[in-house]
């Protein structure tokens, strides 16, 4: 949140202005998108499948035209610029490496269509190959390489002509978990080293949090919240974001009263909770409370908490560095508490009823959950 100053001063590279998109004239796949992408930032479009991320990206790349609205790149409207003139690098989910060309030929392709001299092309290809540590693979065909290697070539190909903007649509979706995590760091480091602006699409919130400077959370064709990963996690603006990003205990109730930034919520069974009033309506309206599992204190640790309840231990889930304890709290049977191994009370066993609590600042009163989930 200390970045507020630089946010307002940094230069905008891409600007979506009231962009809408409909394929069939009945449903808006993208509803009134307004988005500024800053020069040099790593922006991720995060959202469940079908939320319109790819469509937004394709409009930026030029493969789909906005039904209305304007997209600007460096202050110039892109609406009438054909995709091959936009100079935007792109990494596709299945790499889209040309199978009949060697790695070197794939990398030379964007340079030769730009009419670059042969020797310059060779130099540039060599440089970019060593950047992704594939020096020895120049003569291979894509079909002879592993998924991770192909991914690197695709990355190199999108960067080799030095575009100011690179788009990636779920580029790691086809890799296994370990390789995916490795490539996340590699892409992030490349971004830091080259200073290129990246727009990244994923449905994996972990990936989004790890890699991005800012994350735009998409849902049903709208941006729900756009913020730095830590802000998104700690201060979700609505229930969708709170649920979609990280783990979340949800309690539903009704608003009793509100004073300033705090409010009192009565749960369905009668308990009252003091919470941050983030996104609530009038007293009496339904509210959804959100508490992160790691913000809940058990036993003695809960003495100083503003909200104190008791819960019955249902199950321990051992995860190595921490233990997740499933409890029944306020009538809700799947209330999770995350305990670091060091803090876990070894006396605790299934069936015990223990006190627990959380601070006002760690429970957020948000809009009630829609049933469509």
């Amino acid at each position, binding site marked *: 949140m200390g970045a507020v100053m630089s946010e307002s001063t940094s230069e905008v590279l891409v600007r979506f202005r009231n962009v809408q998109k409909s394929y069939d004239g009945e449903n808006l796949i993208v509803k009134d998108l307004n988005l500024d992408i800053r020069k040099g930032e790593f922006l991720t479009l995060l959202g469940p499948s079908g939320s319109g991320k790819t469509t937004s990206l394709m409009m930026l790349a030029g*493969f789909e035209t906005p039904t209305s609205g304007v997209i600007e790149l460096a202050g110039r409207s892109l609406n009438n610029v054909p995709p*091959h003139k936009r100079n935007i690098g*792109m990494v596709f989910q299945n790499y889209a490496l040309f199978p*009949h060309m060697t790695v070197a030929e794939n990398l030379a*392709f964007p340079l030769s269509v730009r009419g670059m001299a042969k020797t310059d092309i060779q130099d540039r290809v060599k440089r970019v190959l060593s950047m992704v540590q594939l020096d020895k693979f120049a003569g291979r065909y894509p079909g002879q390489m592993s998924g991770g290697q192909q991914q690197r070539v695709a990355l190199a190909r999108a960067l080799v002509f030095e575009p100011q903007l690179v788009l990636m649509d779920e580029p790691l979706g086809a890799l296994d978990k370990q390789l995916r995590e490795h490539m996340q760091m590699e892409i992030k480091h490349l971004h830091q080293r080259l200073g290129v602006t990246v727009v990244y699409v994923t449905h994996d919130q972990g990936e989004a949090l790890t890699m991005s400077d800012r994350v735009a959370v998409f849902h049903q064709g709208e941006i729900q919240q756009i913020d730095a990963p830590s802000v998104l996690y700690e201060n979700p603006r609505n229930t969708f974001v709170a649920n979609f990003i990280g783990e979340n205990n949800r309690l539903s109730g009704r608003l009793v009263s509100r004073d300033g930034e705090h409010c009192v919520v009565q749960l369905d069974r009668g308990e009252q909770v003091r919470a941050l009033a983030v996104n609530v309506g009038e007293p009496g309206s339904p509210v959804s409370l959100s508490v992160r599992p790691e913000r809940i204190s058990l036993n003695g640790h809960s003495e100083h908490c503003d909200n104190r309840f008791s819960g019955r231990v249902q199950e321990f889930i051992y995860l190595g560095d921490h233990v997740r304890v499933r409890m029944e709290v306020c009538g809700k049977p799947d209330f999770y508490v995350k305990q670091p191994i060091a803090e876990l009370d070894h006396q605790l066993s299934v069936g015990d009823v223990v006190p627990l609590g959380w601070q006002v600042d760690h429970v957020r009163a948000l809009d009630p959950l829609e049933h469509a989930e």
Partner: protein
Amino acid sequence: MMASSAPMPDHPLTTQDGVPLKTKLARAERMNKLKSLALVLPLALFLLLTFVVPIGSLLLRSVDNPEVVASLPSTVKAIGAWDGKSLPPEPVYRAVAADLIKARDDQTLGDLGKRLNMEVAGYRSLLGKTARALPFDPAPASYKDALVKLDERWGDPAYWQAIRRNGSAHTPFYLLAAVDHRVDDLGDITATTPDQAIYLDVFARTFWMSAVVTVISLLLAYPLAYLLVSLPTRKSNLLMIMVLLPFWTSVLVRVAAWIVLLQSGGLINSALMALGITDHPLQLVFNRVGVYIAMVHILLPFMILPIYSVMKGISPTYLRAAVSLGSHPFGAFWKVYFPQTVAGVGAGCLLVFILSIGYYITPALLGSPNDQMVSYFVAFYTNTTINWGMATALGGLLLAATMVLYMVYSKLVGAGRLRLG
């Protein structure tokens, strides 16, 4: 279960019961191979009986030369001693007289006459005349003098050379004739006289017409196949049915329909004249144009299907990727999409070309005499003159051309990349 120690370098790996691992593996694989062999055995037998054997025996017929050997056995034996330049010695004349009597009685004289007539015109009549005069009564002192006296052609070495040339049960005669060559009187291979040479022209015409049909089909099929893969499924299925529709009607019906459409008073000419594009009917049928139109129509699906099946496997993201890399859409298509379809294009061209060079009905019905292809002559020799030698020689050469084409293609594109559907 595992061997307790690492295998010694000079001892082969063995299984638990002491059998070398390699032997055991080979045994296991042999069983698998036998099993799969047993599965394809019925098909292999079927192919052998319906394909390999008939074609093989047919091809043998193109070098088969039974008539002279069978009908003139002692002549063939006696003529071996002849030097081939002057007239043959007396024993040859005596042998031919004896053989002809026997041939007449066995009624093989007709086949013999027909065969030798191919070598020297008029041979048939010579044999008939001679056989009628035989046997000489009383037996002459010199059969040579008697025969030459009966017909002076027996004094011409050319007639004897024809017999000597065919003194074996196999002959290159038909194959040579099919490429406008022959063995001359001296035993050398020479070109036939220009007025008799037709087959090389026919072969050239066959290949040329097939090439034209192939190119036209490719030009029409490629965009259509691309349309088929880019349309939404429902529309593309409908279009696909229309592509396949010709398969469901007989070739003969389609050819007849083309005659109706293309003839001078036909639909197309009437339409052209009604539109004022032309004031007299165009000659669209009973010439090359008509043959091309109908052949392309019939063969188009064979071009579309392999190309379509290859295109279906190519993701449209390749084009997007190329465009995003700065290539103009046309350039992207040519450099990125087209090379990936080469296997389908090759398969389609090969298929259409091979089918074309064997075409018979369409040129026969829609073409002029100058538009007939090799198959027409194959049919002519099998149906009209019953000359199996010529028919199979022409057919065999066609088959050989097909094989050569296939080999050239697999060298160029790689047989592994051939995608027929």
